[in-house]
């Protein structure tokens, strides 16, 4: 079990910088998600933690020891590859026992350990089968078995569910999370699926173009995105972002959206210019008395809720409201925003510090 600290980690491939300067901490026993769009440097970051790629600069501490230049075999970590990378010339049992054999563990002990792991994963019946005939889910379990069998200090998983069918993925996600809760080992998990990250993670790091955009608990990241990128990337539908020109002074508690005064959490780091107003769809309410108005142009029925799309003077706004509220396309109505939940972003895309988000954003 271990804490992992990443400090100013950087990786260049020739002239291309895949990871700029990442810093974050994975606490002992945490299920930690590395989230970001494809090509943002998640795999590269994970491979540096594993020792499969050496960083250009920066430090990696696993359990207090600086390991950034150590080879993978000396880091006591387990890695689950995206395509599982089961040794195709070995059967299931051999695959799972392989890491133990390298440690020179006695045969009987290896056998016992493999049986125990197979029991946990429910693959006892497969132990003597070749890996080539296994289903995706079973391959996944064997890959996990190979990872957990030697009790490493941490698990690194690169999109481990990416190769599975959608329906099976959900099931495996639950299984993985349950396994983690049972073993309590520090896990760093890479995914590009924000829903998966929110569902499974204790903490999330959101990356984009090799830059760490935000790092924190799923709820905090969802409620208080640090940048417009995070606001757009997390949540489905994403946060509504409306650009407007205004001055948001220190201590201000409202902004003007197209002449409508909207209450916002008290601003602590004022700025001016082209600002962005952000509000989650569930914090948009239909209220004919509200000054900011829009015309309904679409509605999507989602069972318990529906998503209403409004055309407003500053752009489209989506609202998530109860499914039983009757709305008419074409109707013009007022939009009331939950003032406590509003985020404002400076022209450079970073969130303005406010009374509401300072706790979340000030730590880093």
């Amino acid at each position, binding site marked *: 079990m271990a804490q992992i600290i990443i400090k100013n980690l950087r990786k260049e491939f020739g002239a291309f910088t895949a990871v700029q300067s990442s810093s974050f901490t994975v606490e002992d026993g945490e299920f930690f998600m590395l989230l970001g769009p494809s090509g943002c440097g998640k795999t590269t970051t994970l491979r540096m933690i594993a020792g499969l790629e050496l960083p250009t600069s920066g430090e990696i501490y696993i359990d207090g020891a600086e390991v950034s230049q150590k080879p993978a075999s000396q880091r006591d970590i387990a890695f689950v*590859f995206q*395509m599982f*990378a089961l*040794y*195709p010339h070995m059967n299931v049992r051999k695959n799972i026992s392989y890491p133990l054999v*390298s*440690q020179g563990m006695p045969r009987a002990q290896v056998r016992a350990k493999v049986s125990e792991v197979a029991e946990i994963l429910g693959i006892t019946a497969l132990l003597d089968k070749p890996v080539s005939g296994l289903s995706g889910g079973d391959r996944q379990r064997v890959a996990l078995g190979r990872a957990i069998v030697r009790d490493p200090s941490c698990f690194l998983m690169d999109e481990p569910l990416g190769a599975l069918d959608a329906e099976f993925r959900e099931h495996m996600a639950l299984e993985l999370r349950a396994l983690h809760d049972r073993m309590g080992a520090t896990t760093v998990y890479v995914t590009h699926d924000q829903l998966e990250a929110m569902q499974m993670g204790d903490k999330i790091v959101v990356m984009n173009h090799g830059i760490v955009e935000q790092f924190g608990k799923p709820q905090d990241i969802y409620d208080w995105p640090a940048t417009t990128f995070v606001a757009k990337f997390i949540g489905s539908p994403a946060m509504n972002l409306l650009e407007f020109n205004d001055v948001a002074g220190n201590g201000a508690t409202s902004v003007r959206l197209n002449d409508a005064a909207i209450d916002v959490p008290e601003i602590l780091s004022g700025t001016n210019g082209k600002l962005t107003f952000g509000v989650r769809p569930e914090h948009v309410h239909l209220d004919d008395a509200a000054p900011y108005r829009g015309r309904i142009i679409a509605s999507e029925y989602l069972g318990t809720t529906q998503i209403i799309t409004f055309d407003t003077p500053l752009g489209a706004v989506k609202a998530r409201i109860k499914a039983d509220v009757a709305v008419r396309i074409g109707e013009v109505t007022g939009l009331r925003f939950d003032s406590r939940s509003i985020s404002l972003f400076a022209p450079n895309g970073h969130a303005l510090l406010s009374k509401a988000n300072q706790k979340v954003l000030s730590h880093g």
Partner: protein
Amino acid sequence: MSFSITEPSNRQKWIAGVLVIAYALITLMPLAWIIATGFKTPADAIAYPPKVIFEPSVEGYVNLFTSRSRVTPEDLAALPPPETFYDEIVRQYDMVITGPSKYGERFLNSIIIGFGSTFLSVFLGTIAAYAFSRFKVPLKDDLLFFILSTRMMPPIAVAIPIFLMYRQLGLSDTHLGMILLYTAVNLSLSVWLLKGFIDEIPIEYEEAALIDGYTRFQAFYKVVLPQAATGIASTAIFCLIFAWNEYAFAVLLTSGTAQTAPPFIPTIIGAGGKDWPAVAAGATLFLVPIMVFTILLRKHLLRGITFGAVRK
């Protein structure tokens, strides 16, 4: 990779089967003729019209493995009765066996040189191909092209320089010299073929092994090699076929100690130029090792010669 091919109909299978069998028969004909000739008497072998049905004889094989000398009928009569069947056969021609022929030695030379150079080519080729496939090698593409370019002219084009060089170095007519020569010729093929195979093995397997606590060499040895087995086997067959059949350099560079079977077999025909059955017997036996080797590795060969295009 996946592509769909419609299952051929029964009729198509029949036609394909008949064509394949017909082709096989045509290509096997010379082979069958050689094998048959090995069991003819010298007279039958050159009979006209050619004899398809004949009384089998092991004379060819006896002549292949023995040296004989002619004796006068009086001396022959004075000898004690023949002890073995081959003594008997030889005496019908007024000859006696004076000792074994050189065929056994030449055959052994072929085996040593053929398998020795094949082993070296594949061994060096695998290591080089792995390095080219997995590591950053400065000027990699140029080096690979250079290696390939050694095959762009027929090897025999450099025969004279090699002949002179070998004489200087004392490598003429030595096993080592021939092994090195055939290895040099085969290495470019071996590096290129094997690089293709190793490129196809996902690097994740090795990385998984590294993480599982193995060294780079162990990962190579225990994970990459078993998976490159197909490529190694088919490369080995290609290398062996070349080294086994090579004639021109063997004629030029070997004459005694290290002479291989190909330049030796034609000399069996003897002064009278009549002993075709012995030549045919020598050729027949010469085919055996490579056939055995190919049959042993056939499982790999089929996938190997399609150069990785057929995947499971």
